[in-house]
């Protein structure tokens, strides 16, 4: 289980040293020695390596240096077709994720709430989760064609599983004493769901959402790359085949950056909502 990030809470020292805390370092400590500086340094090094390595390699058909790619980033985002493709990817992502979240949460609660349903359905869910979905992508394309439908569907099938599995885990961990106490106070089924089960699930839900978002994006990109006609996948092939590597780099870098930002946002939400877990 790869470790997840660091504690980002930067404690501001009380000595009033202005600007000293920007990188999270202690008072008196040079900002050059903070891990943040190292990371920036590594990124700068990678970009420099990219820049000079590309120029040395000097094959404009296959390689483009960083500066050139950055310039083409500005260019390609002027292209209305590219903009449409980016916009399409985001609304497909939103729709697929919403579907995965809705169904994953509801079914997850239904399965996770009681021991018998858990023991019946969880093994099956895990079995399907382990199934390599990429093998049925061509089949799904036969069924759904190569329009937006296949992307939303494949995004949904990928995003659904991390969410439902985490919701089930969160529901299963509820202290039975809480449920007994609620029932003894006369709570109805719906009240139990709303007041006990659901709040208790929230941290696990956010974990599932973070993983589910990554998975949904993965599904959409896979569908894009396979079933290209227009869309990000189309453009990546197009730029590659027309030997415009700077555009390809720019596009890929942009999507990567978007994925990182989304993941970061969800990770922060997960930390914030998971605080009561200690």
């Amino acid at each position, binding site marked *: *289980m*790869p*470790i*997840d*990030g*660091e504690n980002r809470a930067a404690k501001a020292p009380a000595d009033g040293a202005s600007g000293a805390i920007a990188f999270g370092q202690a008072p008196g400590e040079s900002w050059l*020695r903070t*891990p*943040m500086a*190292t*990371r920036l340094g*590594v990124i700068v090094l990678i970009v420099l390596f990219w820049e000079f390595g590309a120029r040395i390699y000097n094959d404009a058909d*296959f390689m483009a240096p960083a500066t050139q790619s950055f310039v083409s980033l500005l260019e390609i985002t002027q292209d209305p077709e590219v903009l449409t493709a980016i916009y399409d990817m985001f609304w497909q992502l939103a729709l697929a994720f919403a579907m995965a979240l809705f169904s994953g949460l509801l079914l997850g609660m239904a399965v996770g709430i009681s021991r*018998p349903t858990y*023991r*019946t359905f969880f*093994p*099956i869910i895990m079995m399907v989760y*382990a*199934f*390599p979905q*990429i*093998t*049925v*992508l*061509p*089949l799904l*394309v*036969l*069924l759904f064609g190569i329009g937006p439908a296949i992307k939303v569907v494949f995004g949904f099938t990928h995003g659904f599983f991390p969410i439902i599995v985490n919701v089930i885990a969160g529901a299963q961990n509820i202290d039975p004493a809480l449920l007994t106490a609620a029932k003894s106070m006369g709570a109805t089924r719906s009240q139990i769901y709303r007041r006990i089960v659901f709040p208790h699930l929230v941290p696990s839900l956010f974990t599932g959402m973070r993983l589910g978002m*990554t998975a949904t*994006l*993965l599904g959409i*990109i*896979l569908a894009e*790359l*396979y079933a290209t006609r227009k869309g990000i996948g189309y453009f*990546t*092939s197009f*730029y*590659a085949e027309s030997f415009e*590597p700077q555009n*390809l*780099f720019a596009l*890929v870098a942009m*999507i*990567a950056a978007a*994925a*990182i930002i989304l*993941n*970061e946002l969800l990770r922060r939400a997960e930390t914030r909502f998971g605080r009561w877990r200690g």
Partner: protein
Amino acid sequence: MTDSKIRIRLIQVSMFAVIFVAWFIATETESVSNLFLPKLGDVATDFRDLIGSGDAWSPLSVTLFELVVAFFNAVVFGTSIGYLVSRSKFLMRAFEPMFSSMFAVPLIIFYPLALLFFGLGPGSKIAIGSALGFFPVVLNTINGFGHVDAGYMRVARSMGAKGFPMFRRVLLPAALPIILTGYRIGFILCFLSIVGGETIGSFSGLGHQIVFYAESMLTSMMFAYIIFIVIIAYILNSLVFYLEKKGNYY
């Protein structure tokens, strides 16, 4: 078996039975076109032919070759870089979150780059497999080596351990379970990304076979290959889980 266990098994089995029966009826009566959902009998026949004729072995060997090379790369680079990073708290604080964030990106988007550099052959699959397998390995190696219980190290130091004996007798055994988990996850990612790469752009390998038969509308053969891949995946996964457990002393 207790009463509830029997009931659970019954429900699970009947779920599969229902799907099976529905498929059978739909395909035999052709209420669903056989181009989408082939007859079960056809799939069975094609699967048998696949194994028997040995047609599957060539694409299988391509995929396995790509898998072995990619996993080897992931392990070598991931373990060595992970170990080096773990030697300094500073490096760990810098790189662990960085690798973690990079891992959050669906790295398959870099696959077009791999296709650009390596073409449609095994090279691009090995590249993307190595890249994806690298991250769980490096993250778990950093975690494993970097968070060895200080108590073990202190005891060993007091007895005169340092350098290679310290590594061999303390660091490595302490870190091994976590590192092996990283290898397992990395292996699975290698496999999935390689088959994915073969689906998206390739002229060989198991993934490509599925695409080929899909595009030729020979869906029963496509299903046969899907079953074949699932079986291979299951065998590989079981093997990897077993190896991981063997290294685990808890």
